[in-house]
């Protein structure tokens, strides 16, 4: 069986599992998750944030080509756009199962409340979805024109191939340039969802939006790199070596910025020594120390690794570095939740009792005999249903990317001399992942 078929099959299975689980959840209510009143966002929102993060990569890569004239990256602008489109689609899809009343989501459009960062997030994410789609679209137009395929492209028939190529180039650039600020915005606004909340000390920092951007640049670029690596295949790696190294450097550079933000953030949290902040730090380094270590160490490894010659030097190392980074970033997204929700906002100092912060218990929203109803901490761990539902964006991304790569050529051969390229292709093609 073709590898792409396997991947398509896998994507469909993931989507079906997820939809099934979601159906079950719709029937039973969100009670089937392990979220409760005191810990009201979990895996779904973390996954959403993760995909918003990786969605950045696309437009960052393609716009760098235009903005910074990094020509080396040019061959990957299509993949980049595709990766962005798929990721933001996944992110958007992830939000729906998190809603208690998903059938009423339209109310956001009818009665939007513009003080809510969520409304802005909906706006920018929708915008980004359109932009990334356009980006993919305009970049594919020339090929479609040539091969007489694609959709929404009847109008191209009236024009010449050259015209379309020029148009595509022009619009690719325009879209990328409009897209860049939107890409930054989706991270900023998504981060603002959290960062605006004065009730949650772990989130409530101005560093969060820029840090979100830095992580997005790192993880988004890494995703583009991974898809590109897989598309290109091990064998053709050296042809694009420079491009990959550039991407690895972007990743590593973004991570430097990220760690800079993390450090100043922790310093500011810790330096003043407020009981609330201490509480959070004790959660971060104590109870969730292992997770936090994962969040820090894996990307740190990638960062250092990608700065080394060896690290950015091969297919394998780049893949490993990227995957470690994804894990780290995913954990980072989960770590948005744990310390935030387990540091109950209503904490009180009890003068005279030597108690600096006592958390006022919250009613869970569920009662079962012999179990507490009021808690000041909640051992959140996603349920199987949640894991299953959270497969949705993974399935969608896989599906969209595989389907697109299978249908259209996302790796134009222009970069390398045409002859060389075809030779190489003849020699090595079968070893790469066969998307056709």
């Amino acid at each position, binding site marked *: 069986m073709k590898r792409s078929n396997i991947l398509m099959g896998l994507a469909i299975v993931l989507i079906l599992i997820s939809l099934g689980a979601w159906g079950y959840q719709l029937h039973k209510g969100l009670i089937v998750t392990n979220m409760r*009143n005191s810990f009201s966002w979990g895996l779904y929102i973390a996954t959403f944030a993760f995909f918003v993060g990786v969605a950045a990569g696309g437009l960052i890569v393609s716009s760098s080509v235009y903005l910074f004239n990094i020509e080396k990256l040019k061959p990957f602008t299509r993949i980049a756009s595709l990766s962005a489109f798929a990721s933001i689609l996944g992110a958007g899809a992830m939000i729906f199962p998190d809603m*208690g009343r*998903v059938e009423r989501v339209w109310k956001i459009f009818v*009665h939007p*409340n513009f003080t809510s960062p*969520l409304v802005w997030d909906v706006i920018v994410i929708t915008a980004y979805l359109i932009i990334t789609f356009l980006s993919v679209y305009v970049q594919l137009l020339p090929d479609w024109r040539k091969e007489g395929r694609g959709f929404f492209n009847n109008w191209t028939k009236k024009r010449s191939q050259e015209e379309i190529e020029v148009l595509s180039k022009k619009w690719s650039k325009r879209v990328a340039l409009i897209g860049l600020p939107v890409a930054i915005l989706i991270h900023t606004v998504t981060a603002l969802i959290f960062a605006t909340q004065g009730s949650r000390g772990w989130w409530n920092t101005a560093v969060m939006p820029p840090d979100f951007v830095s992580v997005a640049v790192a993880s988004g670029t890494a995703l583009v790199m991974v898809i590109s690596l897989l598309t290109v295949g091990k064998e053709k790696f050296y042809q694009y070596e420079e491009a990959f190294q550039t991407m690895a450097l972007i990743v590593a550079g973004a991570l430097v910025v990220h760690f800079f933000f993390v450090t100043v953030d922790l310093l500011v949290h810790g330096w003043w020594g407020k009981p609330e902040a201490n509480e959070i730090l004790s959660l971060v380094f104590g109870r969730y120390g292992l997770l936090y270590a994962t969040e820090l160490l894996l990307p740190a490894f990638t960062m250092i690794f990608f700065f080394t010659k060896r690290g950015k030097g091969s297919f394998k190392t780049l893949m490993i570095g990227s995957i470690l980074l994804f894990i780290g970033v995913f954990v980072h997204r989960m770590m948005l939740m744990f310390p935030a929700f387990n540091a109950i906002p*209503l904490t009180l100092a009890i003068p*005279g009792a030597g108690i600096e912060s006592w958390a006022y218990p919250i009613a869970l929203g*569920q009662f079962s005999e012999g179990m507490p109803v*009021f808690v000041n901490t909640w051992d959140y761990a996603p349920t199987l249903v949640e894991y299953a539902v959270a497969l949705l964006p993974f399935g969608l991304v896989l599906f969209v990317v595989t389907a697109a790569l299978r249908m259209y050529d996302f790796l134009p051969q222009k970069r390398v001399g045409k002859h060389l390229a075809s030779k190489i292709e003849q020699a090595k093609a079968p070893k790469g992942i066969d998307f056709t």
Partner: protein
Amino acid sequence: MRLGMVIDLDRCIGCRSCAVACKSHNAQPPGTWWNRVFTPGSTFHQAAVGKAGALQMNFLPVSCQMCDNPPCQKVCPTGATYTDERGVVLIDYERCIGCRYCFAACPYGVRQFNWEDPKKAKERVGYKEGYEYGYPVDFRDKEGRLVFTPDRPAGVAEKCTFCVQYTANGEEPACTRGCPGKVRIFGDLDDPNSEVSKLIGKRPSYRLKEELGTSPKVFYLAPTKPIR
């Protein structure tokens, strides 16, 4: 009009009657409490706090603080959470999409979610068939928004409404009527002659997490009894 509540902690005996009155009259399903009373510092309500020789035990009822600057309302994407003309922060059960952003936003842990169909949760208790508790009639505001119903839909947020179904008709909230300690005083903060305004003027009062700038309309009068 800005409706508010004064809770006189000096008089509060920690009996939790207000919490139960609230639960009953507002038809809260099992596990849901709009109004809670705890002993700050203690792992168990009404257990002593501190060390021998310096013990204390105070009680702190907490329900929605009816913020004048309510973060829950600000974050609510659909405007399901809004402040009515009497200054009461309410939730439209028909508009809430269940995103739970307000949960993340509220610094007081008062928001409650219907994780499952409340009817099912009540059924499991084993009440007499066909029995439902709570004020039995829906209440809609002037614009027709559904802000109280005994049959809460699944998947929506809920919280203290200052007993809109009662107070809109000129009655006192259930917790105020249900408090045997006469601790909870309800009234108009804009009216300088109201009992709430007078008490706030007369006695040292504070609000929870004032530093967050939420400007709660629930005021606490400090307990006068110190540690012993």
